[in-house]
């Protein structure tokens, strides 16, 4: 198994100087499913956002897909980010783009060889896989939470990333909705066996949905790992 994420002696502090976690070392490999469990404001978002280069550690190094994130030039970081799919806690769809354009945007922007129609077709078929039943050509502002998460997930998967990071994916959803999104991710990993899935959650109540191989807990300023079969 190849290492996709390598976190070495990383420490992060709040602006007030409170440690979120200190001297943490972790590595994640291809094909793994990792669940990070921690209460609100405990640093799990900081940890996963570091993997996408949205924040930098106060100490230590974060290597993703063989690249030291903090040392990358802007263009190299943007290239690396195409290999990472990220679903934000609150979905964060681009409000002035239609639903289908939100999903097609990474394709339209990064795959210049594709025509506009091909990008839209690709987006439409991926959205169909999520089971989305809303208006593809409507703006996303008024969509219910579940539909927003479906679209955010489709957008994260559209470039077939090697790493998929989901921030509190199940928050605010019914059991059926949680199962729907989880199955979609498991299906994605089945068809892309080398991909790494990372989830965060407030509790381990939803862990069975994705059957994680590894579970990490942020407790105080320590990251504790428990193994699962």
């Amino acid at each position, binding site marked *: 198994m190849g290492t996709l994420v390598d976190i070495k002696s990383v420490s992060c502090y709040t602006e007030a100087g409170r440690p979120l976690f200190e001297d943490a070392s972790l590595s994640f490999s291809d094909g793994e499913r990792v669940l990070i469990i921690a209460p609100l404001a405990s640093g799990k978002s900081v940890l996963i956002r570091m993997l*996408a*280069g*949205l924040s930098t550690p106060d100490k230590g190094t974060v290597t993703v897909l063989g690249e030291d994130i903090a040392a990358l030039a*802007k*263009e190299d*970081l*943007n*290239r*690396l*980010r*195409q290999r*990472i799919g*990220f679903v*934000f806690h*609150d979905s*964060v*769809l*681009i*409000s*002035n783009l239609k639903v289908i354009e939100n999903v097609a*945007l*990474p394709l*339209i*922007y*990064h795959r*210049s060889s594709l025509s*506009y129609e091909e990008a839209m077709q690709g987006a439409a078929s991926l959205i169909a896989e999520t089971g989305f039943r809303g208006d593809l050509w409507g703006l996303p502002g008024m969509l219910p939470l579940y539909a927003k998460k479906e679209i955010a997930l489709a*957008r994260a998967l559209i470039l077939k990333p090697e790493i998929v990071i989901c921030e509190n994916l199940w928050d605010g959803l019914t059991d059926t909705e949680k199962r729907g999104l989880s199955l979609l991710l498991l299906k994605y990993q089945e068809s892309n066996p080398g991909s790494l899935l990372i989830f965060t959650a407030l509790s381990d109540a939803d862990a069975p949905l994705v059957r994680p191989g590894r579970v990490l807990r942020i407790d105080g300023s320590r990251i504790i790992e428990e193994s699962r079969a």
Partner: protein
Amino acid sequence: MDTLKRLGRTLLERARVLFEFWKIIFHTAESVIFRFNLGRKATLDVLLKQVYFTAFEALPIISWIALIIGLIIVTQSLSILPRLGGEGLIGEILVWVLVRELGPVFASVIVIARSGTAMASELGLMKSSNEVSALEVMGIDPMHYLVAPRVLGAMISVFVLTFYFEAISIFGGYILAGFGKNIAFSVFVDSIMQAMGFIEISVSLLKSLLFGLIIGTVSSYYGLRVKKSITEIPQATTKAVIGSLRLVFVADAVITILFFI
């Protein structure tokens, strides 16, 4: 001593903001020249939408204002010039006032009021709702995808609206005010064409492009300076308007002095 310190701090802050403006201009130039093909379809879409909202949708209001300004200037000119024995100067007066000065300035003021505010508030909202981070995480540079097309769109729009304003105000002004004053249309057109030299067109062109650059840059800067709270958005919008107006008028004065003194 305190006054000096305050003055020093203010100057440093102004210098820092100007530096940030230069960075936006640099990124826009870099995007247009060196990254033209990157995400071309997506950025072109943003550019076209910007030009549509800023230029095309402003045509009705620009037409009204241009007609009224043209009417005022033609009426004033035709009432004063005969008393001074300078009826033949009507073309020169209109070109000096409308083409050299009022065209670019009025087009800019309307673009600031309609689109500078929209740009700052839209970018501010995108920033506060994490949409800018969402673009970053997709590997899309917000300066390239959001800012450069807006700055370029503002430049194209002010340029188009300036020449539209000038045409409507000159000819509309003649139709509304000059029609019954015994000046034949052909004489009027001749007088305009004789007064309209290379320098007048160049100054109008330069001003419109520069003012568009200022509006796009300043509005984008204040929009992206919003951090996490939506209550910052109205403040950003106000700062964008005041900052754009201030720089447009300073730039106007500098260009006029450089070209005509």
